[in-house]
């Protein structure tokens, strides 16, 4: 149903061309919101929606943007979308919005957005840009969810706030790894994901 090119546009960023572990974009928020799974999920969804919509908007107006001030125009489009999403989150999911705090606003300066707008939306039509935005947003969300999964499971013995590690384990002397809650471990986990990803994809290069 989908041609090979559209398939590549949509699915490439999920693995081979992942924005976080291959292109190293959008690391800041990827690390900061991953202490628990729930904010990571919300963040992933928010970024996916914003990348896709910003890609479409910039792609539609790309022929009318003067080259010299394109960065400012792109930033304004993104900032307007982020403001919308943050107001919606504050209205319907206040506690998550508070947990994400400044990192919600920092979606504006997320390099994935500027990278995709510059590299893809400025030269491609709206439909391809939508797919590209969705693909990259999901690629980002996947890494977020993986990191958050390990940090929440090992750090507080829970997933999405529900306790997973049984009480009998704690009684037998099992303890949560407090290190996992620290910022340092997020960096090391992403380092390990990059390691695994490169080892697995070695043959294809």
């Amino acid at each position, binding site marked *: 149903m989908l041609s090979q090119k559209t398939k590549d546009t949509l699915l490439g960023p999920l693995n081979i061309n992942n924005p976080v*572990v291959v292109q*190293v*974009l*959008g*690391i*800041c*928020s990827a*690390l*900061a919101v991953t202490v628990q799974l729930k904010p990571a999920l919300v963040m992933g969804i928010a970024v996916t929606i914003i990348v896709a919509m910003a890609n479409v908007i910039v792609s539609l107006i790309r022929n009318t943007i003067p080259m010299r001030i394109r*960065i*400012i125009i792109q*930033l*304004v489009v993104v*900032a*307007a979308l*982020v*403001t919308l999403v*943050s*107001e919606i989150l504050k209205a319907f999911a206040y506690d998550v919005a508070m947990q994400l*705090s*400044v990192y919600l*606003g*920092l979606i*504006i*300066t*997320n*390099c994935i957005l*500027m990278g995709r707008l510059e590299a893809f939306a400025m030269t491609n039509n709206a439909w391809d840009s939508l797919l590209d935005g969705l693909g990259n947003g999901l690629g980002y969300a996947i890494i977020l969810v993986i990191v958050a999964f390990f940090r929440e499971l090992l750090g507080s013995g829970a997933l999405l706030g529900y306790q997973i590690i049984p009480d009998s384990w704690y009684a037998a002397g099992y303890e949560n790894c407090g290190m996992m809650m*620290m*910022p*340092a*471990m*997020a*960096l*090391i986990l*992403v*380092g*390990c994901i*990059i*390691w695994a990803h*490169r*080892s697995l994809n*070695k043959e294809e290069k």
Partner: protein
Amino acid sequence: MEHALSLFVRSIFADNMIFAFFLGMCSYLAVSKTVKTSAGLGVAVTFVLLITLPVNYLLQVYVLNPLNLSYLSFILFIAVIAAIVQIVEMVVEKFSPSLYASLGIFLPLIAVNCAIMGGSLFMQQRILLDPENVKAIANIGDAFAYALGSGIGWFMAIVCLAGIREKMEYNDVPKPLQGLGITFITVGLMAMAFMCFSGLKI
């Protein structure tokens, strides 16, 4: 005065932009290959922070708050930052072509550096804090102190990492871990070392 000094020292060590909040990570990882370029970028970030943060503080306190327009802060802050970065770029191009040549593509990237935007957003939160709190920003002097401290902390972090990466050129790192992977783990270890400053008080 005492409060500003404490804010300054805390923002360098305990609230370090990189190790505590991961802000400005993208350019931090991309530009930290040699000490010289990373020092240049560090100075540029400090400089831009020092201008944008007080400007945004004044906007927040005297324009957005009285008019109840806080929800427009994202757009306003990013516009201020983008405009100031543009001006800095033109000034550097005119007065120091050698610095411009070495920073090249990275100057425009400062506009989308999370450390700059993050500094302004943290400032916005800290205005609301109780003035007794060590993290509170109560006046324009505090805003300067916070900007300078954050900038110096960022500068220090990127120069340290560049130094380590220059040394690491000679090490035998496993193939899939080379480059990016080992850099992440190095930063993780550095962040662990910086955690010992977290109880710092003056």
